[in-house]
C-alpha cells in the first residue's frame, strides 16, 4: 500500500461512523494536495481531516485517533497523540469554567499529568484515589507543558488495583545566575482559590484588591550546559536567603520600597552554587530541598582526564 493509501485508510476509519465517504475519495483529495499543490503529507492530511470534520459537524477532539496506543505518562512528548493510559486520579481541582466537567492530576509509575474532561463529552465521574483504564485520550500542550483531554470517544474502565504513582522529582546543580522579576516580597490576590501575584496592586482576574504578602524567588540555575528555572516558595526562600516574611516586610517598610528585598536577596545568593531537589512543574523545578555547595571539589579526576587528552 502506498503512503497516501495508508493515510486515506486511517482517515476513513476515523469517519466511518459519521460520513459516507470512500477510501478512494479520500485518497484523491490527498493526491491533489500532495502532487498538484506540493503540500507536505502531514499538512495535507490535516487539511482533509478538517474538511470532513466540517462536513460531519464535529470538533477535532471528538475524532477518534484510530491508532491510539498503550502508553505511560512519561511517553507523552507531543501534542495530539492518541493514547490509552492506565492511571490513578491523584488530585481533583475546581473547574474554572462550565465547559469543564472535571480537571485534575492523574499519574502512573512514570509520573503525573494534568487531565481535562469536557462537560459536553458526557463521561462518567472520576473519583480521587481510583485507578482507571482510559482508552483513546488525546494529548495537548500549553507553554511547553503537556496535558491529556478526555473526549467523547474516550472509554473509561474502573480497575480494582492500585498504582504507586511516581513523582517526577529531579535533582539539579549549578550556579544561581539570575533572580527574575516578580521575586522577593510579593503580594498575592486574597480571593478564594486565586493566588495570582498582583501587578501594581491589581489581580489580572479580580482587579484592585488588598493583597497578602508572600515571599518567593524565581531563579535560574545554570551548570554551563543546561539552564533550569527554579521556584523557591516562602519557606525555601527563607532557607536560601535567611530572610523571613516579617523581616522582609520590615525591610520594605524602612525603605518604602518592596524591591529592596529582592536586591538584598540577589546580593546574598547570586553567583553561588546550589543543589536543588523537587518536582518539575512545566518549565519550573519547585525547590523542596536546597543545599549550598560549599565543600571543596577534588580537582584530581579532572586533572587525570586533562593529562590523558
Amino acid at each position, binding site marked *: 500500500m502506498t503512503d497516501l493509501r495508508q493515510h486515506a485508510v486511517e482517515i476513513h476509519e476515523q469517519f466511518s461512523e459519521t460520513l459516507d465517504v470512500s477510501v478512494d475519495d479520500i485518497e484523491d483529495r490527498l493526491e491533489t494536495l500532495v502532487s498538484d499543490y506540493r503540500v507536505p503529507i502531514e499538512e495535507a492530511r490535516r487539511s482533509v481531516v478538517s474538511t470532513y470534520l466540517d462536513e460531519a459537524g464535529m470538533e477535532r477532539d471528538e475524532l477518534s485517533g484510530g491508532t491510539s496506543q498503550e502508553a505511560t505518562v512519561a511517553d507523552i512528548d*507531543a501534542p495530539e497523540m492518541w493514547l490509552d493510559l492506565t492511571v490513578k486520579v491523584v488530585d481533583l481541582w475546581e473547574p474554572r469554567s462550565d465547559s469543564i466537567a472535571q480537571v485534575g492530576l492523574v499519574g502512573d509509575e512514570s509520573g503525573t499529568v494534568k487531565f481535562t474532561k469536557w462537560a459536553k463529552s458526557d463521561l462518567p465521574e472520576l473519583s480521587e484515589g481510583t485507578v482507571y483504564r482510559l482508552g483513546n485520550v488525546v494529548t495537548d*500542550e500549553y*507553554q*511547553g507543558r503537556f496535558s491529556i483531554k478526555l473526549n467523547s470517544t474516550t472509554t473509561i474502565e474502573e480497575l480494582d488495583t492500585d498504582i504507586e504513582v511516581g513523582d517526577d522529582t529531579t535533582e539539579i546543580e549549578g*550556579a544561581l*545566575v*539570575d533572580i527574575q522579576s516578580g521575586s522577593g516580597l510579593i503580594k498575592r490576590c486574597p480571593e478564594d482559590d486565586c493566588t495570582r501575584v498582583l501587578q501594581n496592586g491589581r489581580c489580572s482576574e479580580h482587579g484592585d484588591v488588598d493583597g497578602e504578602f508572600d515571599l518567593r524567588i524565581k531563579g*535560574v540555575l*545554570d*551548570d*554551563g*550546559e*543546561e*539552564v533550569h*528555572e527554579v521556584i523557591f516558595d516562602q519557606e525555601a526562600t527563607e532557607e536560601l536567603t535567611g530572610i523571613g516574611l516579617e523581616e522582609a516586610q520590615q525591610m520594605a517598610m524602612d525603605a518604602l520600597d518592596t524591591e529592596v528585598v529582592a*536586591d538584598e536577596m*540577589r*546580593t546574598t545568593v*547570586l*553567583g*553561588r*552554587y546550589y543543589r536543588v531537589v523537587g518536582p518539575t512543574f512545566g*518549565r519550573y523545578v519547585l525547590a523542596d530541598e536546597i543545599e549550598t*555547595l*560549599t*565543600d*571543596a*571539589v*577534588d*580537582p*584530581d579526576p*579532572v*586533572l587525570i*582526564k*586533562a*593529562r590523558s*587528552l
Partner: protein
Amino acid sequence: MSSAPTREVARRAFAAEFNDATYTFKESDDERAPVFSLLPTGERANRVFVVGTLTETEDVGEESEYWRGRIVDPTGTFFAYAGQYQPDATATLRDAEPPAYVAVVGKPRTYETDDGEINVSLRPESITIVDEATRSRWVVETAERTLDRIEAFDAGGEYAAMAETQYDPDLSIYRDQAIAALESLEESDAADDLLEA
C-alpha cells in the same frame, strides 16, 4: 514545540580563552537576535559565568560613571565594564574593596582598538561578592567544561568547524591552561596544609 524563547546558557571559559574569542556572529538577520562570541575550543557563547579575584576597579567614564573591573583567574584577566545601563553591577564595582572574590554573569563584548586589534570584554548582568570555595568550584567546573569542548572538537560539531575556520586553534594551549589552573588549586591546598601544620 511551541514555547517561550529559551534563555541562553552561561558558558564556562577561562580568561585566556575568553579573551581569544574575538570572532562574533548572529544566527539570524533579526536585529534583536543574540550576538554570540565564538570560543576557540568550539562553542558559541552569548553569556558566561565567571568567578575570579577582583583586583582593581576604576571609574573610566568621562561624562557619566563607567566602571572597569579587572577580574583575575588562573589563566589571565577578564575586563568587565559597567555603566548606567547596569546599575546593580556599577554599584557593586563602585563599592567593592579589592582584592575580593567575585562572581560575574555577563555577556561577551568585542571592540576594535585604534590600532585594529580586537579586544574582548565582559558586560556584567550581575556581580556579587563570593567566597573562596565558590571560586575553587568554578575553576574545577571551568576546567572540566573546557576539556569537554576540546574532547568533542574533533567530532566536528558546527561551532568546532567554525572555530577551525576562524582561528585554526592550538587546542593544547587551552588544555595546558586548564591543567595549570587545576594544579594551582592543589598547590594552594598544599600551602594551606603547610600553614596549619
